[in-house]
């Protein structure tokens, strides 16, 4: 018997794992991310993410700039949702300096945030589909069409398509122009139709279901323990949205729901994003109805000098909780600014999500987390 068993182990097909370096330049690492993947055939045995290929030292640069001059830097963090980053930063500075923002300014911010959320989720879903291998990018291009419409609106209010530099401490840099509201109204009216179209293209697609269901599961406990946030956390079944849990701006005046997933797999993350788009449209509708008149920005001195102290302000960006920990020493520049990165922390559990799956699933799972390297590496 003994000889038999030893024979059978000898007969077992031994494969040797090998290391595959994905990135820093890889078509679907969403920038310059690198994963050192240990593969056994196509199966992932181990994964180690390597960061820093886009580390630009934003936190250090912020120490040399005035509070206003930091805003353009925040644009370049989560470059798919710059408005939300602006908002997170100005909110923490307002908290630090105790500044009250006029109501109209708050509403404009909310509208921009929600438009940004729709646009960012469109991109997240589009690139996710890309990572799943829509080889000629059709879903991405369809979603880019809607994103362009949103970018048109952003361009209308602040003149840029990607790096808006729109929000200011105390409000926004300029009130929305007259033609903005009709366009927004039209967009909100049309958008559900397009989302329905994406649903038709994707929701029941058997290949998509097979590729995403049950893949890259992030269990609820791990999601909380690993400080995940945003759609990644909610897909794991945690009803945690800072807009509800810790309402900022005027979010407590809107009626909306926080969609959650059940399992925490790639499919849930994708569904949560689609459902959040619907909720964003709801918020936009209400914000349009309640839109008040008045000033868009508080009157403030050109150079802020907040009192000595520190503040942590956070908002719910499309990727998750983004917070700015700002320390002031009563000078015109922040003494220390730390960015709480949503996507970097969402990546914490990446290894647990992909071990045992195929190479293709690594890419898909990674895509479903929706990161922007600007903010992961800062």
């Amino acid at each position, binding site marked *: 018997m003994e000889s038999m068993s030893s024979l059978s182990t000898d007969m077992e097909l031994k494969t040797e794992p090998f290391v595959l370096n994905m990135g*820093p*330049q890889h*078509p679907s690492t*969403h*920038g*310059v991310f690198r994963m050192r993947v240990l593969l056994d055939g196509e199966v992932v045995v181990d994964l180690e993410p390597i960061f*820093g*290929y*886009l*580390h*630009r*030292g*934003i936190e*250090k*640069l912020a120490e*040399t700039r005035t509070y206003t001059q930091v805003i*353009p*830097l925040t644009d*370049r963090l989560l*470059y*798919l949702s710059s408005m939300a980053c602006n908002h997170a930063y100005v909110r923490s500075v307002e908290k630090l300096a105790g500044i009250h923002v006029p109501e109209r300014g708050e509403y404009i911010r909310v509208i921009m945030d929600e438009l940004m959320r729709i646009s960012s989720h469109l*991109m997240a879903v589009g690139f996710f589909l890309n990572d799943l291998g829509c080889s000629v990018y059709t879903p*991405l*291009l369809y979603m*880019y*069409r809607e994103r*362009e419409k949103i970018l048109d609106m952003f361009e209308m209010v602040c003149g840029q*398509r*990607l*790096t808006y530099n729109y929000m200011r401490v105390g409000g926004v840099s300029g009130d929305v122009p007259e033609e903005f509201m009709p366009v927004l109204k039209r967009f909100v009216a049309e958008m559900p139709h397009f989302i329905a179209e994406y649903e038709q293209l994707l929701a029941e697609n058997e290949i998509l279901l097979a590729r995403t269901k049950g893949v890259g599961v992030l269990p609820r406990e791990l999601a909380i323990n690993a400080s995940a946030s945003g759609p990644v956390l909610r897909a794991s079944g945690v009803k945690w949205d800072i807009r509800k849990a810790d309402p900022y701006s005027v979010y407590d005046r809107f009626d909306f729901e926080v969609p959650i997933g059940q399992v925490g797999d790639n499919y849930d993350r994708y569904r949560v994003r689609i459902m959040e788009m619907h909720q964003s449209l709801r918020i936009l509708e209400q914000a349009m109805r309640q839109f008040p008149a008045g000033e868009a920005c508080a009157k403030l001195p050109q150079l802020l000098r907040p009192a000595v102290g520190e503040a942590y302000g956070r908002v719910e960006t499309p990727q998750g909780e983004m917070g700015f920990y700002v320390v002031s020493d009563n000078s015109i520049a922040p003494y220390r600014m730390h960015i709480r990165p949503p996507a970097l922390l969402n990546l914490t559990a990446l290894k647990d999500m992909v071990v045992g799956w195929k190479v293709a699933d690594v890419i898909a799972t990674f895509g479903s987390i929706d990161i922007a*390297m*600007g903010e992961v590496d800062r």
Partner: protein
Amino acid sequence: MSSIAKVLNWGRHYSTWPFGSGLACCAMEMVATASSRFDITRFGMDVFRASPRQADLFIVSGTLTWKMAPAVKMLYDQMAEPKWVIAMGACAISGGTFAHSYSVVPGVNRIIPVDVYVPGCPPRPEALIYGVMMLHKKIDKRKFRQQD
């Protein structure tokens, strides 16, 4: 210029395949350039090659950090001649707003030769297309046995 060179340049002009490499924010505008609204495929650039071996044009789109610099140099070296480089956006041109940072390369031209600089942060898709058209003009003037 010989007529052979003309034919060659015509081919290269209308078939400048870009390398699908995105470094940072500008990559989003680069994708937007390829999207339906601006459609860079009209210029025959629809094949965003994933492998540098098959690409002609390296659009450096975004901030280049010192950590990434060896990789970019390597990618450039891997591209087959003739090859061109567009520095897209302030970060690629000069480091942009991050120029004084400890980890950012102040200008991609310190690592690889650049043919066209497209300013903007990030440049609009039209601006990038304009840069590409300037590159086309440069390609058209190429001599037959030119080494660059």
